[in-house]
């Protein structure tokens, strides 16, 4: 595996004997900065956690309580009432199917870009040819295209196909609803995906690739047997990123998911419910919590990889 320089080095705790030089300044600085700094960090952490925490507590309260008092009253009268979860999940137009839809959109919407983007990143990093720089920078710059801008054209392309003059070169209604969404997510992810993976793949030691080439391996073989396995950390981080992004997307889903509830992912469903639930506020918290829990779990479990991938693109040591 690659030996990435460890980004976060563990610092040696100061020893109790008389300190000199670096340790001394560090200890002095620590002593000065600690109390206020800790207080600020604790304060911000609490501020950042309260909204989600309160939202979660509210999802456990009964209808009367949600209406009658603030969620902080939970501490005075702790209760775990799952009725609202049950209603949200299973009553008409419940959230079970939207949750499944979200999975059905997110899994291919993550796997397809991983392969296409890592292939593109490899060829841009290791098969230099005339114009490869231009393609790389154009791809990167395409992240400025606002989704709304692309959606109009894409919708037309899916519905009516492509024409040159009046000659049809691609049939309309070619893809099914889900495929349209997968393709759209793949297209929109490419600028960032190619960029992130390129940064990583370009750092693979040249000697490794050269050695394989001397042994007569073709480019595709090198990609499959050397680049792909070595890029796993970057791919993992992009996969998490893409999973969360696709799961949380509202715009693409609203445009191509159709108005039928049976095809909508959970975000679109919740956004609709937010309008319709004006009179059913007690259902908003459990519905919202069900929608965020899966990306949250993915994120918490794999946070380490996520951070590493973000850093591959933005920090120069």
């Amino acid at each position, binding site marked *: 595996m690659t030996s990435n320089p460890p980004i976060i080095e563990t*610092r040696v705790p100061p020893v109790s004997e008389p300190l000199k030089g*670096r340790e001394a300044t560090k200890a002095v600085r620590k002593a000065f*900065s600690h109390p206020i700094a800790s207080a600020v*960090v*604790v304060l*911000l952490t609490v501020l*950042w*956690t309260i909204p*989600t925490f309160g*939202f979660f507590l*509210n999802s456990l309260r009964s209808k009367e309580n*949600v209406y009658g*008092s603030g969620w902080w009253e939970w501490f005075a009268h702790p209760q775990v009432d799952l009725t609202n979860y049950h209603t949200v999940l299973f009553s008409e137009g419940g959230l079970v*199917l939207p949750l*499944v839809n979200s*999975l059905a959109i997110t*899994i291919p919407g993550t*796997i397809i870009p991983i*392969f*296409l*983007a890592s292939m*593109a990143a490899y*060829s*841009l990093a290791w*098969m230099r040819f005339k114009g490869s720089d231009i393609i790389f*920078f154009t*791809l*990167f*710059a395409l992240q*400025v*295209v606002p989704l*709304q*801008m692309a*959606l*109009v*054209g*894409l919708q*037309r392309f899916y*519905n*009516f196909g492509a024409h040159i003059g009046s000659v049809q070169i691609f049939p309309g209604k070619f893809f099914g609803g*889900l495929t349209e969404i*997968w393709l759209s997510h793949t*297209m929109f992810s490419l600028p960032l995906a190619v960029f992130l993976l390129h940064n990583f793949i*370009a750092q693979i030691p040249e000697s490794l690739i050269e050695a394989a080439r001397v042994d007569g391996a*073709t*480019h*595709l073989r090198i990609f499959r047997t050397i680049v792909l396995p070595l890029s796993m950390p970057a791919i993992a981080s992009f996969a998490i990123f893409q999973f969360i992004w696709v799961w*949380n997307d509202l*715009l693409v889903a609203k445009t191509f998911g159709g108005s039928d509830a*049976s095809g909508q992912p959970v975000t679109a469903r*919740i956004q609709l419910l937010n309008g319709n639930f004006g009179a059913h506020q007690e259902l908003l*918290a459990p*519905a*919202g919590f069900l929608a*965020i829990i899966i990306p*949250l779990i993915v994120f918490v479990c794999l*946070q380490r990889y996520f*951070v590493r991938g*973000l850093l591959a693109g933005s920090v*120069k040591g």
Partner: protein
Amino acid sequence: MAASSSHVVLASTFSESVSKLAGVLEAVGGFLAVLLIVFFVAGRVTGRLQKPLAIIICLGPAVVLATVGLVIPAINTMVLSTTNTQASGQKFTLVNGKLVPIKAKFVGVDNYTFAFTDPDTRSTLIRTVLWIVIVPLVTVFIGLLLALLTDQMKRVTLAKSLIFLPTAISFVGAALIWELMYDYVGPGNPQTGLLSEVVIKLGWHNPPNWITSSPLNTFLMMIVLVWIEVGFAMVVLGAALKAIPEEILEAARMDGATGITLFRTVQIPMIRSTLIVVTTTITIATLKIFDIVYTMTNGNFNTDILARDMYDKLFVTNQTGKGSALAVILFLCVLPLVIYNVFQMRRDRATR
């Protein structure tokens, strides 16, 4: 009775779910199989054709998809922005099963003139500028503060994780979470929103209905985005600070630099390029922000911003020409940032 009917619903939902997921696995399997076959067949080819073929196979799909999904629609939108197209962006419409071109008139810069003169649209533009100035500044400031404070601190993993957590929450989810925070109940009744409760406890007996009072509501929604993005800024900037060689900090301390001086003269300049990248990323994200305003107010109560107004014109009220002009304005706002980043990257790529 209710239980049995819900069981029936559950059973049909279950079977539908299973068949849906099976279809998805099939599709993914098919995709991987095609990829394998292409690799296998192309792997037989050797000699002069090998490299061009490999380039086409590796780069082709990405380039085609990016062209279809991003380049062509972008160009198309620019063309549409100079027309008075009304239908939802279609060049053709189906009449009796035949494709008939929709006649759109060229109107020059009329749509742009509209965007800058129509009072509603103009205040939407001004509000968007407020968003892209305030949100990145505040986010980077708090992120940098946290990164600096936690740099030398021990046992901060939990705090950092908690602050980073909102990154994983969807904008829609975040909007719901903050709607609860900003919940309004008339005075005298028990409050359900934490913000009202706190300000009442602090002595403001008659707080406004937060989400409907302009211009306050715009700033309250900005807080939601700041809340989401700070973790990202903190983590990336924190890593940049860690990457500063200890020798440099040491030398600066020998010269007597501590605290704020050290920070201003050494640490900030050393992480300048990372600061720029983070600010750019957050600015682009802010410009495109749509879901928060869409979910919380749908642009009502004087909160509309460019990305939501554009969505409305393109997909709801069918003013494609005007919506496209807004899209191009948005595009032109982000372009300088990305061009700047490209120049930075070209330097790096050249020196690699």
